[in-house]
């Protein structure tokens, strides 16, 4: 039997759909089937490359030894004719950008969800307060991150996320049925 942490980590890559909680209100028209197909194929390709390429570069038996297989994998790529020989630096910049986009999206979703919990009318002051809390928490976390065992912390978070997502999907399913009935 696989460990629950392994399942949680593996399922995380599919959990981008959760953001649709907020973004669904922006889909005014129905998405064309061809677009869905394109997205599906791109995702499949990304998934395939991010699993298979590190295994190919580092071996089936020893790829597990690396902490960050994907980043180390990029360091194995040599670009002899480009201005920078190590592909790592180009990739790291992309990687940082992707992480920042992800942070922005998640902050937005979290912010909107918190805004939704206000019983009264949203005021500018309240919004700013929430954002200040976000900032303060992140800055404090960054200062102390090395001593908080980030890999352990993120594992707990990933496991919690897995259960919460299942709960949320079923929950919203029932809410929707009750509203219709």
């Amino acid at each position, binding site marked *: 039997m696989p460990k629950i942490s392994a399942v949680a980590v593996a399922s995380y890559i599919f959990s981008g759909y959760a953001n649709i909680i907020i973004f669904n209100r922006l889909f005014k028209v129905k998405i064309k089937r061809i677009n869905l197909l394109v997205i599906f194929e791109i995702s499949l390709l990304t998934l395939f490359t991010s699993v298979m390429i590190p295994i190919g570069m580092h*071996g089936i038996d*020893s790829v597990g030894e690396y902490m960050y297989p994907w980043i180390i994998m990029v*360091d194995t790529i040599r670009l002899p004719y480009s201005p920078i020989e190590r592909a790592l630096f180009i990739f790291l910049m992309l990687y940082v950008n992707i992480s920042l986009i992800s942070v922005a999206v998640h902050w937005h979703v979290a912010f909107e969800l918190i805004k939704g919990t206000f019983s009264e009318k949203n005021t500018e002051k309240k919004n700013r307060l929430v954002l200040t809390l976000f900032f303060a928490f992140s800055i404090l976390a960054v200062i102390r991150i090395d001593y908080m065992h980030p890999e352990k912390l993120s594992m707990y978070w990933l496991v919690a996320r897995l259960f919460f997502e299942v709960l949320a999907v079923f929950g919203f399913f029932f809410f929707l049925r009750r509203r219709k009935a």
Partner: protein
Amino acid sequence: MNQNVKMLSGLLIVLLMACFLSGCGFKDIDKRLFVVSVGIDPAKNNSKKFLVSLKFALPTGEKISNEFLIISQEGDTIAESVRIMKSKVDKEIDFSHAKLIVYNEEVMKAGLDPNLYYWFIRRLDFQEMSWVAIGKPSALAVLKGKPKSERLPSNALFLALGRDGTETAYIIPEFLFDFKKRFGEKGLDPLLPIIFAKKDNFEINSVALLDKNKLKLKLQSKETMILNLFLTQNQKTALKINGGEDSFVIDTQAVKTKYKLITENQKQPYIKVDLSVDGRIEEARFNVSNKDLDKYEKAAKGYVSKQVKAVLVKMQKENVDPIGFGLRYRSRHMGNDDWKTWQQLYPTIKFKVNADINISDTGLVE
């Protein structure tokens, strides 16, 4: 407060906050010494285990630019030696340009200490794609080499190993990440090119084969070339056919090597190797004619098959597998004991080599 004042005060706050930023201990380029290659020898007349040498590139004027400095230090581990070496130089040692790691053969003979390659993997500043090699007569001698054609320190070796300069089937370059992978991978064994340091140049035309622990076999240059036909597709090389008066040389334009493990329902399991070579005759000890190409092809076919088979059997006898037959077997067989079965199978498996040689013409003369 009007809008402008508000914006300006915001800007001021941001600028003031910048005062709290700390630097990251960055050292300028003129306060760094760049390591270009690392050598590891056994220590002599010393209680320590290894002699670690670093070759630094020294920036110089235009006239001669491959000036360097070598610092060596004995130590039981690389980390220990490097730390002591820091007290022997005036500037920060920077490993980000170290692209060659040379081992002495003696280090391999008793069994290679895994820390001798894990240290490079574990460090952030080392490139995963630096090359590894065996240096003869010693690693230090390879570092000291100063080929006449070299413009930058160690660059001659980088060009040769990286196939940016010379391109030959006799050099089998090995990257650090691949070297480490081969130690962990069941069914794929590590190999290292051997660099012979000469007075004014160097020679890389043989390869050392290791099992998971130590050096097992060294191939001759011709055997190295044949092994490379399996490791790199489409090698451009020359195949000499026959030894005596009827010998001729084929300049290969395209070489394709395929192999298939035929192990199921067989009394005698075998590996079927298919070699296809396209080329033209480059040199011959006799008068060749375009009419007799079939005859030459046939002669070449038998000769090449025999030679390839000899190399494969030689590696099989030492029970090393740099081509990865074992890995291929494991990829085609499910089950918990596939690796065990292969280990029993490999020493007795037969090779059936079929070389398919197409000679397009005899060149511009008959």
